[in-house]
């Protein structure tokens, strides 16, 4: 029984938790942009890739100077630099590209198409600078708990391994989310952002500077995207194309939670991540521990092969949209 629980924790819960945290951070960025700027930013996946790329380059720089994070990955030291460069780049695109359409009050779909153009440019830049190959940049300690140690401590047959990157992901995500909610709830700028998101005209009447709100939003979105991208890259590995594909689960998470609702984005991230992992996990191991030996299953007990994880995010998206059109937490619709 305990063995089954440990196997479940090891193969489903811990990976799901880490992946969910990464998706939640990505979805938060999407949802903030949607709330304030009122369009779905298709360039978000590539913003993540861009931020991660800058962080990787900075990590390599630090490593060549002989600086390392010890047990922790060096990338964490390089992260602020990555966020800074990404924020500057994103502010630049806003100034050069998006501001024009904002002044015109262009339709949301036009802004989405504009973000496709930005997506192309960012994707090309990332490929141009760092290439299309896979880059592993995690260093420092590999595991917080190794399977062998765990077995020795508990005397169970099944091991529980927690990788450093998974631990870092969850801790960082919690810190970031707490900081973000504190910012949105308590600071003057955060309050004006929420006011702007709820009712633009009213916010303008009360003297909020829209350009400033937009700039702060871009900076936060860039920071969230970079953090999410770096965490994902540390946990798995960096490849420009996978980041583009993350767009789907991230949007699914944001929409399932309700576009424009930060709390919803977090919930959506975990809903998507856990369903992906549970549906594509082969449950044979867990079930074998639970049932008597003669009833042990022959098959893998895998509902769907891992390659169909997109289908899972998508199915949840459709189900939620059909039955709760504004998402789990009431999002907005323009």
């Amino acid at each position, binding site marked *: 029984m305990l063995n089954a629980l440990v196997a479940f924790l090891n193969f489903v819960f811990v990976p799901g938790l880490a992946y969910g945290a990464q998706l939640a951070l990505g979805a938060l960025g999407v949802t903030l942009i949607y709330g304030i700027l009122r369009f779905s930013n298709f360039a978000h996946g590539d913003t993540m890739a861009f931020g991660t790329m800058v962080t990787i380059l900075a990590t390599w720089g630090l490593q060549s100077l002989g600086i390392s994070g010890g047990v922790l990955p060096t990338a964490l030291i390089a992260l602020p630099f990555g966020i800074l460069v990404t924020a500057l780049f994103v502010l630049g695109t806003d100034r050069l590209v998006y501001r024009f359409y904002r002044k015109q009050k262009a339709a*949301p*779909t036009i802004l*989405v198409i*504009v973000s496709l153009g930005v*997506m192309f440019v960012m994707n090309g830049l990332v*490929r141009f600078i760092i290439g299309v190959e896979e880059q592993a940049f995690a260093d420092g300690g590999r595991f917080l708990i190794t399977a062998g140690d765990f077995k020795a401590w508990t005397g169970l047959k099944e091991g529980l391994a927690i990788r450093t990157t998974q631990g870092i992901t969850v801790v960082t995500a919690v810190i970031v989310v707490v900081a973000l909610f504190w910012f949105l709830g308590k600071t003057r700028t955060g309050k004006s952002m929420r006011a702007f998101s709820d009712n633009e005209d009213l916010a303008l009447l009360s003297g909020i500077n829209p350009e400033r709100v937009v700039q702060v939003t871009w900076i936060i979105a860039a920071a969230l995207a970079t953090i999410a991208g770096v965490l994902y890259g540390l946990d798995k590995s960096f490849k420009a194309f996978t980041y583009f594909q993350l*767009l789907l689960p991230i*949007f699914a998470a944001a929409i399932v939670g309700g576009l424009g609702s930060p709390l919803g984005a977090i919930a959506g991230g975990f809903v998507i991540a856990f369903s992906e992992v549970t549906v594509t996990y082969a449950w044979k191991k867990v079930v074998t521990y639970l049932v008597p030996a003669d009833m042990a299953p022959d098959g893998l007990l895998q509902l769907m*092969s891992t390659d169909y994880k997109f289908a899972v995010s998508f199915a949840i*998206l459709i189900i939620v949209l059909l039955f709760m059109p504004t998402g789990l937490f009431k999002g907005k619709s323009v």
Partner: protein
Amino acid sequence: MNRKNLTLFALVALLFIGTGFFQSWNSSLGILNMALISAIMALGVNLQWGYAGLFNVGVMGFVALGGLAVVLASAEPAPGAWNAGGMGIVLGLMLGALTIGGAILVWRGMSKGKARVLVLIGVLLAGFFAFRAVFDPAVTAIEAINPAVQGNIGGLGLPVLLAWPLGGLLAAAAAWAIGKTALGLRSDYLAIATLGIAEIVLAVMKNEDWLARGVKNVISLPRPVPYEVDLQQSPGFLAWAADWGMDPVTASSIVVKLCYAGLFGAVLVALVVLSELALKSPWGRMMRAIRDNEVAAEAMGKHVTRRHLQVFILGSAVIGVAGAMMTTLDSQLTPGTYTPLRFTFLIWVMVIVGGSGNNWGAVLGGFLIWWLWVMVEPIGLGLMSAVTAGMADGSWLKVHLQDSAAHMRLITMGLVLLLVLRFSPRGLIPEK
């Protein structure tokens, strides 16, 4: 067609002629063939976006389905595959469809409450396991047949030209199913939904080896035009090539490409004529009325959802035909090479740059952007050689810049799209 538009088309034609003179006619025709196909895809997207304002970013999925139709219709039959598992596959798929139908019936027929949810989950679970129980052994049986070269259900051996309309039909059927579930959604939701469906279509094609061998690819599909090798061995052709003073190898490959260009051109012309007729008909006016103001159109008694579904199916069918043509041109189906940037977003760049809502614009965009997409690579390489000419040989920056020149094309496409949206938002040939 006025003078400005004719000039634009002439300029694009010049690009292709220039490529012929300065590079080779062979590569110019190669680009032209894919440009013709791209123009058809752009027509399909224009039907959906330009006529009706539907934001479909699942183009890749329909292109892939068109390609799948070629394999299913015209690949050689796999002996024994149908006997081994054909019935199981059909039965399994029918069970799957029945399950979904049953679930819909339960949802509609039962009154709200916990009982309905429980019955619904029960029906879905039972259906899923029944589906797997019938489907899995059949798949294993089929994939076991001669896996090195086949291991799939095989085609019907039909003429490949017949596979083009079939590709359209397959894409249309998929579009019907997608439209039924997703078309009621708002524009951004529809975009995400179609993006997801395209990924799922690709995932199915990559993983379901029984269908079209997945990533092991189906090669040497039949061709509607003669083979180069056969031409080079026919005495008549050799004499003809000698008459023109051409090397037989070059001549044969040019003739083959011209044959393809003729076929593709005929399809393109037919589709443009049909699209233009549709656009100018009362139906086209109604579509644009719906696009511009759904509420007003609905008040006039137009069935908005039904019209949206109709135009979504039509556009997807056009894209499916183009996908089938592309697979025919390559004579192979390689699901691993389909990426959204190339097959969805590039088509969108074509439509926006050409002019959404205008068929001629979409065609022009298809030709121009495809030419640019291919030619940016050599141009970028030349540019990089010029930029790096002053640098020391073997310096890392020089090597890096020259190696990465290939990625210039994405940046260029993005810039072209952004510039057109900024300075000529209605495209090169705007809607009238």
